[in-house]
């Protein structure tokens, strides 16, 4: 238990398509998290920003941008980037500073303002950049990859379009009363299945949008936390592992995988290994989880995650879903926040928002969407270029 840090405060700015400066969302989230923690900004020793690469220099130096906006206090600063895992990397940087005894209190924050439509690569001809080439040579968009995973489930396990639609239906109901969610509308299975096909078998309402949003957490040493609160929620593990060679599951933005010709594939594929490392670090397992927040970049991908984080065996996710086990009230609710289905992705904020959600449930503060008696939860996401993260939060 020597690896634990306290989640002293959490805060978010509502997700949406506000079109304002990302700094505003981040500061709003910071203020909320500081207030929730009951501390002042000047108590913060370390300001850990999750970077946005779409907002010029202020986004590249997000940690410093937020520190300046809150008021230069002499705090130490860092900014992390790891695609969808940026927020988790930011939390991991803060956790390590605390566990190393280099600081007592850290503020972790991520916020984004996103352009409309498909995420597209930067402009210019970049024949060296796989993210540019995949569009140029074959039109492989982000939904391409999600669709390949979805179709793979159908071919392997006989999953149906209705199964995928049901994930969206479930998440849309979960997020209905979440004040931070962008979309608060209960979708029916029929509505989802009638939405336009984007990348077969995935339809428009099954693919995650990009959003503006911001989230922040205040982390502290357990010693500091005990002076401020009783029984704080704790971070028991943060996994930021990379794949093992050869990684033979196709991943954004690549057009090819490693070859398993001369080296055997590892025991665990990459997505499974992310959560496995978190469980190992926390010393608890999937059976101990009360809830999970996973990256439903597509409705179908949520089903993969059930298996990747060990909630069920490969091929059993559809049964779990259809039996209501992952609905609030079920055995282990998944995405009680509403997930990306209700939020849309605000890249640097998302992994932090997942931890905010778990924290509210473990404290019993999740309101109408409360998972009763929650004692431990796990987050999971996967980004580009071998990035992924999993965070375990416990009571």
């Amino acid at each position, binding site marked *: 238990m020597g690896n634990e840090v306290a989640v002293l405060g959490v805060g978010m700015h509502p997700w949406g398509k506000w079109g304002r400066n990302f700094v505003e969302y981040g500061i709003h989230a910071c203020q909320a998290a500081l207030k929730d923690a009951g501390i002042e900004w000047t108590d913060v020793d370390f300001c850990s920003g999750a970077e946005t690469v779409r907002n010029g220099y202020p986004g590249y130096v997000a940690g410093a941008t937020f520190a300046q906006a809150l008021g230069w206090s002499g705090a130490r600063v860092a900014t992390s980037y790891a695609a969808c895992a940026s927020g988790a990397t930011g939390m991991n940087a803060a956790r390590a500073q605390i566990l190393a005894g280099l600081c007592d209190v850290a503020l972790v924050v991520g916020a984004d303002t996103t352009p409309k439509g498909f995420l597209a690569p930067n402009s210019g001809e970049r024949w060296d950049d796989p993210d540019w080439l995949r569009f140029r*040579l074959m*039109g*492989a968009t982000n939904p*391409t990859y999600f669709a390949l995973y979805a179709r793979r489930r159908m071919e392997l396990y006989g999953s149906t379009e209705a199964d995928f639609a049901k994930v969206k239906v479930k998440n849309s109901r979960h997020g209905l009363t979440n004040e931070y969610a962008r979309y608060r509308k209960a979708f029916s299975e029929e509505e989802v299945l009638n939405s*336009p096909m984007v990348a077969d078998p995935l339809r428009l309402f099954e693919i995650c949008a990009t959003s503006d949003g911001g989230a922040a957490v205040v982390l502290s040493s357990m010693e500091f936390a005990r002076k401020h609160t009783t029984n704080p929620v704790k971070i028991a593990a943060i996994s930021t592992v990379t794949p093992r*060679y050869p990684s033979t599951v*196709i991943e954004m933005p690549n057009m090819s995988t490693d070859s398993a*010709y001369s*080296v055997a594939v590892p025991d665990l594929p990459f997505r499974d290994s992310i959560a496995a490392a978190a469980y190992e670090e926390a010393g608890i397992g999937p059976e101990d989880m009360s809830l999970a927040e996973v990256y439903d970049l597509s409705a179908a991908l949520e089903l993969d995650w059930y298996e990747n984080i060990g909630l069920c065996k490969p091929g059993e996710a559809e049964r779990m879903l259809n039996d209501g086990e992952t609905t609030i009230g079920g055995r282990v609710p998944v995405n009680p926040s509403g997930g990306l289905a209700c939020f849309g992705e605000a890249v640097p904020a998302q992994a932090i928002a997942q931890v905010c959600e778990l924290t509210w449930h473990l404290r019993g503060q999740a309101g109408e969407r409360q998972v009763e008696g929650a004692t431990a939860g796990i987050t999971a996401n996967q980004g580009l270029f071998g990035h992924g993260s999993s965070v375990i939060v416990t009571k």
Partner: protein
Amino acid sequence: MSQAKTRVPAIEGWWSADGGAPHLLGSQCSDCKSYFFPKESMYCRNPKCSGTKFDEVPLSRTGTIWSFTEHYYKPPEPYIAPDPFEPYTIAAVELSEEKMVVLGQVAKGVDMSELKAGMNVELVLETLYEDDDNEYLIWKWKPLAD
């Protein structure tokens, strides 16, 4: 309509039709024999190998489908889409010898409903886009009659 356009690769050095049937060009580490596509020329990506010498090798021109998807909307640039836009299918194919998965569009005229995971496919060359002078060729995957 005058003469035929010149057929040029959409990207240089990634495939060849020299010696007959078209195939992708990969590289193979001289030390551990690992294959790479696109070609690796600097440092072997097998973490237990520090090889820095690579041979350019033709890759298997057949493989099996791992998964596939059809696109109904025009993707953003730098994709050069026909006007009007035409849906296209992408397949992820595991090469028979190298055990690596390579994406590619599926050959024109193939309906997505004909595809299945595990199906054998072969590599063909087709036009990706064209301008006034040239047709730009790219590899595509085409089901093999069995």
